[in-house]
């Protein structure tokens, strides 16, 4: 039982990072933009939150936890949305290729983040190991009764607020995409921009908004990773990048539905950490085991293409640039 609880907890920690990334990307892809810059955006979000809070904590004697959290979230959202804005401007206004622009954004984001992450200490005048203890503690504050309610508390109450925020966001986004007029318009843009345009929907505005807000949400994955998963430090080890690609994979796994990202992300987490809980694996066979999330995604991809059910397909105009005068 304790083994299961610890696996479940590890899965939730891991899953929440990619869940934010995937939800942002779902919103973006619903508008027809395939943004392969998710890893870069998550990097931007992570470093923006770390840097801003780092300077705030160094400036004041007694940093206020609530303000720390607010600064972290706000700066991360802005930085990531800015990344989304670069992508939008290039692909929507300047009609550059989406795949290439997204990959460039990933290179750029990981460069910016690792550059500042590695030199933050030096830029601040050499204060030793970067650590934002107050903020990280605020992010990791669990719900009340987490320790006093036994297994139930450990399974469901023992996480920082962003875990619950992710779930709430998934539910809200599902409502937005399936029940509201704006959400349905967005779907129309992703399915067939020319038709949407003819119906009086502003294609450009929808694409811009979805991509920038989507990027902002993806960036939250970076914040959660930096503040909670690695406890308010920085590591130049490229792990955000591989998590970002997993987030892209999760979008396919969920077949572009936000609600499925809740259990999908935790399932990815379980698949990723399972090797740790299976006895008798050597160091080399563990590595084979870590393939499972990727292989599962490939299988899902194949099954989707085999069954060809309409509701499981991605947006029809995904990856295509829209130019009104081109037919």
């Amino acid at each position, binding site marked *: 039982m304790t083994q299961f609880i610890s696996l479940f907890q590890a899965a939730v920690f891991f899953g929440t990072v990619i869940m934010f990334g995937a939800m942002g990307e779902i919103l973006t892809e619903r508008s027809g933009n*395939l943004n*392969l810059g998710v890893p870069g955006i998550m990097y931007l979000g992570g470093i923006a939150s770390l840097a801003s809070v780092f300077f705030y904590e160094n400036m004041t004697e007694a940093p206020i936890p609530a303000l720390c959290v607010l600064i972290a979230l706000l700066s991360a959202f802005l930085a990531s949305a800015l990344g989304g804005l*670069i992508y939008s*401007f*290039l692909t929507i*206004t*300047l*009609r*550059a*290729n989406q*795949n*290439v*622009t997204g*990959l*460039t*954004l*990933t*290179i*750029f*984001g*990981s*460069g*910016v*983040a*690792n*550059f500042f992450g*590695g*030199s933050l200490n*030096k*830029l601040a005048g050499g204060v030793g190991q970067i650590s934002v203890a107050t903020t990280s503690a605020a992010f990791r504050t669990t719900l009340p009764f987490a320790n006093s309610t036994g297994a139930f508390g450990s399974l469901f109450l023992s996480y920082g607020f962003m875990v619950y925020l992710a779930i709430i966001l998934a539910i809200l986004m599902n409502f937005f995409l399936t029940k509201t007029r704006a959400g349905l318009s967005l779907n129309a843009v992703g399915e067939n921009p020319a038709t949407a345009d003819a119906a009086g929907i502003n294609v450009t505005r929808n694409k811009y908004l979805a991509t920038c807000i989507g990027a902002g949400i993806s960036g939250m994955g970076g914040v959660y990773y930096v503040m909670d998963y690695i406890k308010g430090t920085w590591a*130049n080890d490229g792990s955000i990048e*591989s998590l970002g*690609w997993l987030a*892209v*994979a999760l979008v*396919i796994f969920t077949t572009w539905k936000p609600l499925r990202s809740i259990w999908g992300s935790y399932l990815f987490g379980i698949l990723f950490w399972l090797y740790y809980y299976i006895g008798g694996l*050597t*160091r*080399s*066979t563990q*590595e*084979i085991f*870590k*393939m499972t999330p*990727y*292989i599962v*995604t*490939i299988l899902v*991809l*194949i099954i*989707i*293409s*085999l069954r060809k059910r309409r509701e499981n397909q*991605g947006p029809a105009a995904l*990856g295509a640039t829209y130019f009104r*005068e*081109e037919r």
Partner: protein
Amino acid sequence: MQNNNKTVHSGHEPLIRIVKRDAIPVWKTICIYALAIVLALVVCGFLIYAIVGLNPIRVYISMAKGAFGSEKRIWVTLRDTMMLLCIGIGLAPAFKMRFWNIGAEGQILAGGLASAACMLYLSKGMPNGLMLVIMFVLSALAGALWGLLPALFKARWNTNETLFTLMMNYVAIQLTSFFVAKWEHPFGSNSVGIINQSTKIGWFPQILGQNYLLNVILVLTLAALMYCYLKYSKQGYEISVVGESQNTARYAGIRVGEVFIRTMLLSGAICGVAGFLAVAGASHTISVDTAGGQGFTAIIVAWLSKFNTGIMILVSMLLVFLDKGALEIASAYNLNSFASQMITGIILFFILGCEFFIRYRIIFRGTHKEG
């Protein structure tokens, strides 16, 4: 009445209109690209100044020193350019038929693994020349296999290849970590170490006293062959028809699925050869960083050069120059070497953006001629 009509008309005319260009003279294209790169360098200069307060011009000079400062550095720059170029050559045919092979990273690793395996298991009593040929062939096969899988599913069931190839990268990375743990030497180091350090079996031989001349010869030959293949062969023509429109290709009697599979075998094989170059011609070891993100960078190389292998040489040179230069700044000014990725990103954004002005014309209100 007529007057009224006219005012309504001009009131509805937008401030800016965008029109597709028919053709653009080559010198104009070059000017637009040059302007974009200069603008990008200026932006980077401001950024460098804002962050670290260094004179950007001096920074750029020391970048040039880092890339071309000594004979040894020139050769290393050349070697890395060839590596990037080789991957770009591999990706060009796939991208030309609009098959988004994002999986070069994995294909390189597959090729690299095959090379390393040969060096570890076959090197007893094998002459170096034969060994290199075997490694070349097996690496190409391994890369081709890695590219074949997504192509088969794309051809048969139209499975999304962008995401399939992307996932194959991580399968390859995990496979590499598996073998690194298995071949680990010395024990506990979590790396394979330099293979065949004493016998140098499976290492590229020196030509004219240069370690990396063989890399240059091999890749430039491949570049020339690929140029001819895409431009003059029937198969190359089929690739460009499929890339323009799959329906047109079907109508013309081209079996699109077959073209997908054939081209991805070729594309994967050349990326596998890039893995062979990385292992036998450069590092003489294998790790999960053997591809090191170059599979992604090469996508941009192939795309920006419009699949023309000649232009590809220039673009790869520019990117490797930036990388080497940034490494030099990093060590000279005690900064972090990731600055190179940042600068590369900014320059690429500008180049991607400037292509708009090559493909389209902007007309402001009232400036166009009537009729």
